[in-house]
Every structure is written in C-alpha cells, then in structure tokens.
C-alpha cells in the first residue's frame, strides 16, 4: 500500500482569500487515498516551492480565484526549475479564463480545472499521470 502513496501539495498563491475550492480539493484527494499537504492562504512562490522540495511531493496543485495567475504562476514555475524540481506534476484550478489556459500550459502547467469540475475527474487525472 505504502508504495502507492501519492503526495500532493495544495497551495494558494498570492493574496487571494478564496479557500473553499482548495479545501474541497484537499479533502477530496485525501478521501481518494492521497497524502495532502495544505499550506493555507497567502503563500509566496518561495514558500510554495520550498514546501514542495522539503515535502518531496509528486504533485503541486495551485488554486487561484483572484485573476493573478498570469503574474504568479510563471514565477512559481521558474523557481521550481531553479530548485531542480521541475519533474513534479503541476495542476491548477479556480477561475482561470479559457484564453489563458494555453499560456499556462506552455510554461509547464499540465492541466487546468475549471469551477464545477468533479473530484473524481481530478483524482483520475492525477492517477493516470502518476502511472506514466
């Protein structure tokens, strides 16, 4: 069993105070058998990347509903590369306009989940990516 433990960091970057979605995801992934580190609100890119390194997570999930993804995500991805952890699977969710999705995928964010996405779909996606 322990071999299958997927470890996920759920982080809320920036000043965004909407944490409902992040908590729903964190709890859902736990119930799906994953070990979820939740860092709470208002995390700087440094904090997020440091936590990802120290916790040695397989997945980082960024939750953002403030519209600041365009500024924050590239910084996070750069720092992740700097720290040698660009092998980690990065996902995002929240209110991210469709027009921005490709730009974010180009910098290495594998998938973006919009409001209303079911937990089951997110769990399946993570499991599939981890199997590869």
């Amino acid at each position, binding site marked *: *069993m*322990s*071999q299958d*433990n997927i*470890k996920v960091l759920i982080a809320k970057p920036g000043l965004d105070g909407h944490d409902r979605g992040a908590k729903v995801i*964190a*709890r859902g*992934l*736990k*119930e*799906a*058998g*994953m*070990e*979820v*580190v*939740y*860092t*709470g609100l*208002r*995390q*700087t890119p*440094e*904090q997020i990347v*440091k*936590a990802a*390194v*120290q*916790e*040695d997570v397989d997945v980082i999930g960024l939750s953002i509903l403030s519209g600041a993804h365009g500024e924050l995500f590239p910084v996070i991805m750069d720092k992740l590369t700097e*720290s*040698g*952890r*660009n*092998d980690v699977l990065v996902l995002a969710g929240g209110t991210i306009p469709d027009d921005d999705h490709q730009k974010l995928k180009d910098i290495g964010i594998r998938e973006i989940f919009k409001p209303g996405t079911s937990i089951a779909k997110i769990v399946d996606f993570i499991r599939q990516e981890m199997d590869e």
Partner: protein
Amino acid sequence: MIMEISAEGVRSGDERIIARVISQVENQRQQVFPLLKELYRSTELAYLVGITGPPGSGKSTLVEKLVLSWTAEEEKVAVIAIDPSSEFSGGALLGDRIRMGKISTEKNVFIRSMATRGYLGGLNPAIFDTVVVLSAAGYQKVVIETVGGGQNEIDIVRLADTTLVVTVPEAGDEIQTFKAGLMEAGDIFVLNKADQPTASRMELILKQMLEMNDSENHSSDNSNWEVPIVKTVGTEGEGIEELRRAVMQHRDFLSRSRKERYNHSRVIRNHVVHLMEEFLRNHYIDPLLESSAFQEILAGISARKTDPYTAVEQLLKSFNKEQGKHEN
C-alpha cells in the same frame, strides 16, 4: 532529475537530497537501510523535542515561535509534523504548515509533514529513521508534533528528550484523558490560549493534577524534575521566552542527572523492537497470510481437525527452521 543519494549527500545539507531520502525511508524502506546504517554510525542524534496535545490547541503555532527563537541563535532546526492517516482511504490531510508560515522559508529550518500510516501497535518506525537522517544533515534540534489522544502520542513522548504537553483553557473535562498516560509523560505543561478568560481556572486545575501526580509517582523518571506549567499566547508570542528557557532547563536537568543517556538507550531499545516487528511482519507474517498453506491451516481449524494453539506451535516451528537456514 538524477540525484546521488549518498551519506555525503545527506551530510551536505542539500534539502532535495534530505527530502528524497525521507521519502525512501517512508516508502522503500529495504532499499534505504544500507544508507541508514552508514548514517547512524557517524551521527550524533539531534535533541528531540516532542509536542503533543488536543487538536487545535495551538501546537503548530507554538512550534513556529519556538523554532524562531532557536534560529535567532543560529541553530539548525527540523520539524516533523505528524497527522493521522484515514483508516478508510489511507489518505491524510497534513495541515500543520498553515501555522508555520514564518519559518517555512528560513534557511536553517526544514519542515516535513508525515502521515501515521496506521502502524498497529505503535509508532511508524520511519519517524525515528527520519530523525537519523535529519541529525546527519546537521539539524541540532528536531521537533516532533503529534495530535494528542491515541497510543501514537504516548510513543512519541517516549521518543523525545523533552516533551511538551499543550493544553488550553477550554479543555475542561478533556483534561481527564491526560491521566491515561500523558500526564506522567509531560516534562513541561504548556497552557496555551492564556488570553482566554478561563485560563487562570485551568491553571489551578493543572497545578492540582500535577501535585497529585507527583505524590503518586515518587519513583517515576521525573522524580527530581518539577514539571513546570508555562502559560502562553502562541499567536502573540507571549510566554515563548519562558518556554524556551524551560526546555533549556529540562535539557540541563537531563544531562546533569545523566537521564539523557538513559532516554537514548530507551529510544534505541524501542526502535530495535519496532524494526524487528517490521521485519517479522514483512518477511514472515505477511507472506504467510497470503500463502495457500495458511488457508489450509485455517480451514483445518474451522473443521476442528486442528486447533489454533497447535497451529501456532507448528507455524513457529517451521519459522525456526527457516531462521536456522539463514544462519548457515
């Protein structure tokens, strides 16, 4: 990313290597034993501070402030924050970092969240192994946070050199549960959330309980150590200086009375027992459970062709034979 996982790598203090080794300690235990052997022999264990208490009592908040007081003195400090695994899914929600924001980017601080992973009959042996890794990486103090209530907590307390038991004014009746073992185990009691109006009443109750406990246990480990009660407001950092001093005093007490050495030998004894249990389970009990021979034995017991007592005697006999083979 290919990383060289070696004793040198761990000692270099590279956080990526330390983190990866801890994951191996959790997930690929057999593979990491050669490294642990090497690390253990060349490492002096860090000073272990345990902190336990009811959910939400402010443990993580206090850890953040205490660790800040130590890093201000240039100490390297690691935190192992343990949360329970869900019995149903095996997953876990590890949320202690929420209250450790101020130390999360300090260069001399390493924080690792761990799930209990439902070890039957005690502590996940990976926790002590993680302490070995962090000690080898140069962390002088390791703080272990666990939620109070179960057997795990008592085991954590057995692991630590100094144990802080946190309680809060509203604990009320809950405090009674301390009696089940934590009361004896705490080296320092922390009354957190002292900003709440009922704090002084709770302080009185605590004092009385400690006095009672004292007169009951003359021969306990703590016979010469007077367990202090430190009042704190974790969120404001109030009482942290007193708490830091109390930890220092307990450490001095241990080294003066040589109980530090006593504690270490007890910790090592527990770990050896844990490792043996783990080995027996992995190499003997688990494979046995999956074998068809075992199913046949069970069927035999059901049909009363044999009985559980004879079956166990026979199983242990064949186990001894196998052990004999290993020795030759």
